[in-house]
């Protein structure tokens, strides 16, 4: 079966991103495929390359990256939500005249159309959210 996952929860402060990560691993372990993982609202912070986690804690963005590399996952961060929140890649840094950028490798910025396309292509779409 084809799954897509929507992550609206940030990597820190609420549990949603960690639950989504465990769920994604379980989907793959069960032999299903993941068409896309779409990060929306505060979930875009999961795409930060700059999260520095104490050694005895999990770095959720890094774990997304590792999972994506292992399984060739499509990790898409909503571009409109991301640039407002200060999550940008080199191309957006140029566009907005910023000296620095922070999108993690394996993540890609794209539009909400990628969420809609994921809905069209997937048998199941599962959302992990945080209230607010």
């Amino acid at each position, binding site marked *: 079966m084809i799954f897509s996952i929507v992550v609206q929860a940030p990597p820190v402060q609420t549990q949603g991103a960690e639950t989504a990560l465990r769920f994604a691993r379980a989907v793959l372990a069960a032999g299903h495929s993941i068409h896309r993982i779409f990060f929306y609202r505060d979930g875009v912070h999961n795409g930060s390359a700059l999260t520095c986690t104490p050694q005895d804690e999990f770095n959720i963005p890094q774990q997304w990256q590792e999972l994506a590399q292992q399984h060739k996952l499509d990790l898409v961060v909503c571009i409109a939500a991301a640039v407002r929140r200060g999550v940008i890649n080199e191309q957006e840094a140029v566009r907005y005249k910023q000296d620095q950028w922070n999108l993690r490798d394996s993540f890609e910025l794209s539009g909400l159309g990628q969420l809609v396309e994921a809905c069209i292509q997937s048998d199941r779409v*599962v959302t992990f959210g945080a209230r607010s």
Partner: protein
Amino acid sequence: MVLHTLNQAPANAACMASALNTITSEDTLLLIEDGVYWTLPAFASQLANLTGRLVALEADLKARDLKADAVESVDDAGFVALCVSHDKVVSWF
């Protein structure tokens, strides 16, 4: 056949009430994250209207040391299986 997930602790009674309004006897309510606190006996009366199946995510029960003997639990693989066996997933948060 809808799988509903709910991740809110009992102080967010409005979230549970709205979820219960949409759950049919063919549906399943999966409690995840802080939602697993709803398995405490004190909240049984608020869940009395639930006609569907009630399930809680094992890792979240264990993290919080909730026994929930009366409630069925599933691991992450079981969560995925529930997604497959229902037509769609609705998230309450």
